[in-house]
């Protein structure tokens, strides 16, 4: 464990925990201050890992989740409103950040070792694309969860549903870009773009699951709720598979 990096991680965990707490208390001004503080700290930690390791910080779960949290936090700041209500899209997003930091408790808080291939464009694009896709899918899940909460009270609220769909499609596009980079990487390194192993089969599983979310039939409130539930679960599917691919 690299001590300064680990201390940075625990401080960020505390900061994001405070952000979620302040959101639940409805103290929006303090929440904003801590959010910016946590995101600046997150950015600095990523930069320091990049500086220390000499590679883009995406090569182990610790690095890639830090990048995911940074992208998720920034997109949440830009695309979600500060609601006076305790439960809103941002509440879900900060809860998701806490889950990501919680998962990292079980992983070494250090940067990945240097490898000769870690500056290859396709390798970097594959890992960055995955981290960004996960961040956008988590944001989409926040919107879907919010839609499910408010749709019980009113049937006319469809903005979170639309935003959920938009960010899920954007996350899917980034996922496909990362898969394409992975195809080129595999082609250059192994002579083929497909291998019959867990990594490739689980990627195909994620893609088919996303296709399922976009192809659910029907219209009306029941269909919207089904889309929201399966859409919100897509980030969990992606997260679960990502974690299962990275043994601590």
């Amino acid at each position: 464990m690299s001590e300064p990096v680990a201390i940075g991680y625990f401080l960020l965990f505390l900061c994001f925990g405070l952000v979620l707490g302040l959101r639940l208390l409805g103290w929006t001004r303090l929440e904003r201050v801590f959010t910016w503080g946590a995101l600046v700290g997150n950015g600095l930690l990523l930069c320091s890992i990049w500086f220390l390791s000499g590679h883009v910080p995406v090569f182990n779960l610790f690095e890639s989740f830090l990048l995911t949290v940074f992208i998720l936090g920034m997109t949440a700041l830009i695309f979600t409103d500060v609601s006076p209500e305790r439960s809103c899209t941002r509440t879900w997003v900060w809860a998701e950040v806490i889950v990501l930091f919680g998962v990292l408790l079980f992983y070494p808080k250090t940067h990945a070792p240097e490898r000769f291939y870690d500056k290859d464009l396709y390798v970097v694009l594959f890992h960055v694309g995955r981290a960004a896709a996960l961040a956008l899918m988590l944001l989409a899940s926040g919107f879907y969860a919010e839609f499910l909460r408010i749709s019980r009270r009113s049937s006319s609220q469809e903005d979170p549903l639309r935003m959920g769909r938009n960010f899920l499609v954007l996350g899917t596009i980034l996922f496909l870009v990362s898969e394409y980079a992975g195809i080129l990487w595999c082609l250059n390194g192994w002579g083929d773009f497909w291998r019959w192993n867990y990594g490739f089969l689980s990627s195909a599983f994620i893609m088919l699951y996303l296709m399922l979310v976009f192809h659910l039939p029907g219209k009306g409130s029941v269909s919207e709720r089904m889309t929201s539930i399966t859409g919100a679960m897509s980030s969990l599917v992606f997260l679960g598979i990502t974690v299962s691919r990275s043994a601590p």
Partner: protein
Amino acid sequence: MKALGEKLGSLSLTTTALIILLLWLSGGILLNAAPTFFPGFESMNRTLLSEWLRFPQERFFLKAWFIGLCLCMALLGVNLIFCSWRRFFNLLRKNFGAARALMLLVHFLFGFVALGHFSGFMFGYRYEDIRLAQGQVFQPAPDHSIKVEKIQLADASRTPGRLGRNPSIFDLNPRRNFAEVSISEEGKEIRRQELSFLTPLRSGARQVTLRGFTAGSDPDVVLAISSNPALQFFLILYPLMIAGMGLHLAITWRKNSQRTNSPTP
């Protein structure tokens, strides 16, 4: 007949086919983790599946799983054809919009990408773990041959934790550990290049990839030699499909969800 066409092109069938595919793939993931079937998957990686299916020693259960996977994909393909056919004529008759036309195009592209992927399993050739010493020749097809002209393995003894074993390609500096390889067609050299990890030699649909080295006083290179006639087609259509999805998202970003949830035009 029309009712059957409606059913074959319905979103309900799409959902059903996708759920079956997800379950089938989950089964594959479990089989891949089982020690009994893992060597079978490794064998699938080493050769073209059109040849692998003819290997008598491979397990019937794994072959049945693969054929089942292909059948599920075929069902999705039939659904795609019927759905696109109906929507295509609807599009020409009424409701012609950029978003709908673009989504139809993305579906067509997906179909061709899937076909390109499947062709990669079936056509061309594939040889993995071909071990050649300096000066040795391998002939993957009657009219052409691959010769290892030179091997430079500078870092083998410095690979940490692998004393007495073959060095891992991931730990070797590609600038100092490489092989020079040439491809000849009907006895005439058509291409010569230094190969290192992540820098393969390509000539048309043929590819020679450096997979590793075997240590010793006279080191060998481990090569993957493959030819995939559908590869260029696949590599061009895949990013076009992504671009189509991106454009569709940009067009529909502000539209309400009732209209944009459906992926089909």
